[in-house]
C-alpha cells in the first residue's frame, strides 16, 4: 500500500515538473501559479474547454469593408461592435482591414526571439507574447498572456478575456472589458425564444415519458407502491423528501469518509460514489414519475366518475400526470420573456416542480424504492382489525369461498 502511494506521489511530481518545464517554481509567486494553471489547462483534453479555432491570418477587407484602427483604443465599446460585426460565418470568411497592423483568428503568439512591429488584433483566441511587440494589442474573446521577458510597447485591450501579466512588461495602458452580457436569447426574436423554450419543454417531457413507460414496463409494482405512498402520505413524503435533500450531501460525505477510514473500503470509494449518485438520481426521477402516476390516476378516475370512457392503465396515468406536471411550465414558455411576469411564471413552475420532485423523492425513500407498503395505504392498520371486521369478513375456509362477490360498478349505479 505504501509502495503504491509512493509511486502515485512520484507520478504526480513527474507530471507537475513536466508541466512546468525546466523553470523553477516559486510557490509564493502568483505569476508562477497562474502559469502552472495555464499549462495544466493547455494539456487537458480539448473537449473540456471547447474546440479552439484553428490559428489563421485574417485577409484584408475590400476598400468598403470593415476597417479598424487599433492605434486609438479610447472607445473599446465601439471597437467591440466593429470587431463583432466583422466576424464572418464561417470564421474563415472573416475579412478585416487593420490600420498599421494585422488581424489573426485563433491563437496567436510572438516567440521570445521575435519582434513584431505594428498593431495586432486577435479574434477568438489567446495572444501569447514571449517576445517584443511594438504596437497595440487587441484580443476579442481571448486572453492576453504576457510571459516573462516579453515587452509590449503600446496598449493592450481584451474584450471578453483577461490580461495576464506573467512577468513581462506592458508599457502602455492595460484595458479589460468583459464580454457583451446580452445573451443570444435576449437578442433573438420573440418567436424564436418561445419556440426554443417550447422545444426544450417538449424534449424534457418526451424524455420523462420514455423513462416513465420504461418504469411501468419493467418496474410497475414498485412504481405503484411509490405512487400509492404519494397519494396516501403526501405530506409525510414531502417532508421526508425535503429532509432527504438536506441530508443527501452529508450522507454522501459520511459514506466516503467511512469507506476511506477502512482499509478495504477505500478501494470501494469510486464504486460507492457512482452507486450513491445513481441511487439518488433514480430515487428523484422515479419518485417524480410516481408522482405523475399518482396525479394521472386521480385525474383519470375523476374523469371516469364523470362518465368518460377511458382505459385505466399505468401508461395512461404516467402520460396524464407528466402532462399535468409539464403544463405548469407552459406559462413560462409563453410569457417568460415578459419582464417580472416571466420571472414570476418561472418561479411558480420551479416551485411546483420542486414540490413534486421532493414528494416523489420522499415517497421513494419511505417505500424503500417501492418495496415497503407501510405508507401506501394498502395495509389496514391494527386498530381496524376489530372482532366485527374479522367476524363479518370471512378470511379462510368455506365461508370465505362462499362469500358473495362484490356488486360491480354498473349494479351500484
Amino acid at each position: 500500500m505504501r509502495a503504491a502511494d509512493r509511486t502515485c506521489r512520484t507520478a504526480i511530481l513527474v507530471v507537475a515538473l513536466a508541466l512546468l518545464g525546466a523553470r523553477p517554481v516559486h510557490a509564493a509567486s502568483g505569476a508562477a501559479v497562474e502559469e502552472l494553471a495555464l499549462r495544466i489547462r493547455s494539456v487537458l483534453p480539448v473537449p473540456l474547454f471547447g474546440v479552439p479555432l484553428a490559428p489563421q491570418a485574417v485577409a484584408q477587407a475590400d476598400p468598403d469593408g470593415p476597417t479598424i484602427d487599433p492605434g486609438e483604443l479610447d472607445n473599446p465599446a465601439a471597437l467591440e461592435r466593429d470587431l463583432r460585426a466583422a466576424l464572418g460565418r464561417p470564421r474563415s470568411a472573416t475579412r478585416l482591414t487593420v490600420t498599421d497592423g494585422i488581424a489573426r483568428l485563433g491563437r496567436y503568439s510572438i516567440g521570445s526571439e521575435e519582434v513584431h512591429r505594428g498593431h495586432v488584433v486577435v479574434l477568438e483566441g489567446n495572444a501569447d507574447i514571449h517576445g517584443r511587440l511594438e504596437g497595440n494589442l487587441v484580443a476579442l474573446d481571448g486572453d492576453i498572456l504576457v510571459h516573462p521577458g516579453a515587452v509590449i510597447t503600446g496598449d493592450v485591450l481584451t474584450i471578453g478575456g483577461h490580461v495576464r501579466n506573467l512577468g513581462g512588461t506592458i508599457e502602455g495602458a492595460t484595458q479589460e472589458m468583459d464580454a457583451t452580457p446580452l445573451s443570444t436569447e435576449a437578442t433573438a426574436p420573440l418567436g424564436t425564444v418561445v419556440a426554443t423554450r417550447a422545444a426544450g419543454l417538449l424534449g424534457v417531457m418526451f424524455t420523462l415519458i420514455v423513462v416513465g413507460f420504461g418504469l411501468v414496463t419493467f418496474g410497475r409494482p414498485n412504481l405503484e407502491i411509490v405512487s400509492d405512498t404519494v397519494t396516501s402520505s403526501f405530506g409525510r413524503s414531502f417532508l421526508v423528501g425535503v429532509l432527504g435533500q438536506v441530508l443527501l450531501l452529508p450522507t454522501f460525505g459520511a459514506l466516503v469518509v467511512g469507506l476511506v477510514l477502512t482499509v478495504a473500503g477505500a478501494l470501494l470509494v469510486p464504486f460507492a460514489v457512482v452507486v450513491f449518485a445513481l441511487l439518488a438520481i433514480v430515487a428523484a426521477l422515479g419518485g417524480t414519475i410516481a408522482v405523475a402516476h399518482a396525479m394521472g390516476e386521480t385525474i383519470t378516475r375523476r374523469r371516469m366518475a364523470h362518465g368518460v370512457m377511458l382505459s385505466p392503465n399505468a401508461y395512461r396515468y404516467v402520460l396524464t400526470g407528466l402532462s399535468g406536471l409539464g403544463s405548469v411550465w407552459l406559462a413560462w414558455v409563453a410569457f417568460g420573456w415578459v419582464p417580472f411576469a416571466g420571472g414570476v411564471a418561472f418561479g411558480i413552475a420551479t416551485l411546483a416542480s420542486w414540490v413534486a420532485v421532493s414528494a416523489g423523492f420522499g415517497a421513494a425513500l419511505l417505500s424503500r424504492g417501492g418495496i415497503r407498503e407501510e405508507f401506501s395505504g394498502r395495509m389496514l392498520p391494527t386498530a381496524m382489525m376489530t372482532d366485527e371486521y374479522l367476524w363479518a369478513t370471512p378470511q379462510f375456509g368455506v365461508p370465505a369461498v362462499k362469500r358473495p362477490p362484490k356488486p360491480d360498478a354498473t349494479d351500484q349505479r
Partner: protein
Amino acid sequence: MRPLLACAALLVAGASLLPAQAMRSYTTSRPARAGDPALLRTTLDFGAGRVVLRAGATDQLYRMQLRYDAERFAPIHAYEPAVGALHLGLEQQGRGGIRVTSRAQLEQVARFEFAPHVPLELTANLGASEATLDLGDLSIAALMVRSGATRGIVDFSRPTRGECRGATFAVGATELSVMHLANAGCAELRVEGGVGRAILDFSGTWRRSPTLSVALAMGTLTLRVPRGTGVRIRGDKVLTSIAGEGLARAGDVWSTADFATATRTVDVELKTSVAGVELDWID
C-alpha cells in the same frame, strides 16, 4: 373583460419594448513611467452611480474600474501624454427609457486611483453620482468638483502633496461635504451652488490660511472651523442669514475678535441671494 385583456396585452407589449439590462465591467490602468507628464490634467465624467476615488499604488499612473449599464453608457478612456491630458469615466449613449429592475441591479460603480506623486489638475463631473473622493496623499494642484443631485463626500483624509492653487466645489441640488480641508492646503476655495447644501470642514493639518469665495443662490453653507481660527465673513449678500458663536458684525462684515491676530484664518467672501451661512467650531 375585453378592456382588461386589452390593457394586459398593452402592458405586455410595452414591457417587451423595454431595453434589456446589460451591466458590464471595464478596467484600465497605465503604469507610471519616467517620462510621465509633470502635470496630469484629469477629467472624470460619471453621471450616475457610485464613485470612489483615492490614491493608488506609486507604480500605476492611474487605474479605473467600472461597472456600468452598457445600454446607456460607454466607458471613456483617453490619454494624451504630450499634453498631459487624461479623460476617464462614462459617457451617455443614445438609448434611454424606463428600467424595470431594482436599483441594486443597475447600480453603476466607478473606482478611480491615481499615483500619489503625480500632480493632478482634477475636474470631477459627478452628475447624480454618490461620490466619495478621498484625496488624501494625492498631489492636488487644482480641483474642481461638480456635484448634481445626490450626496457627495470629498475627504482630504491625509495631507496632500505639493501646492494646491485652488479648489472649486459646484453644488446643484445636493449635499456636498468637504472634510479635512486643512490637509489640502489650497490657497483659494470656491463654493458655487444652486439650492444645495455644502459643508466645509477645516480640520486637519493646517498648511495655509485660505480665502473662501461663496456664491450660493438658495443654498446653505456650513463652516466647521477649529476653535482658535480667525474667521471673517464679508461681501455682497441679499437675504442671507449668518449665524455663529463669536461672530461680531460690523457693517457687512462678520468676524471673530481674533481675526487680525490669529495665525490661522478663514476669510470668506459671500455672494449669495437667499442663503444661510452657519459657523460651527471644532474643539
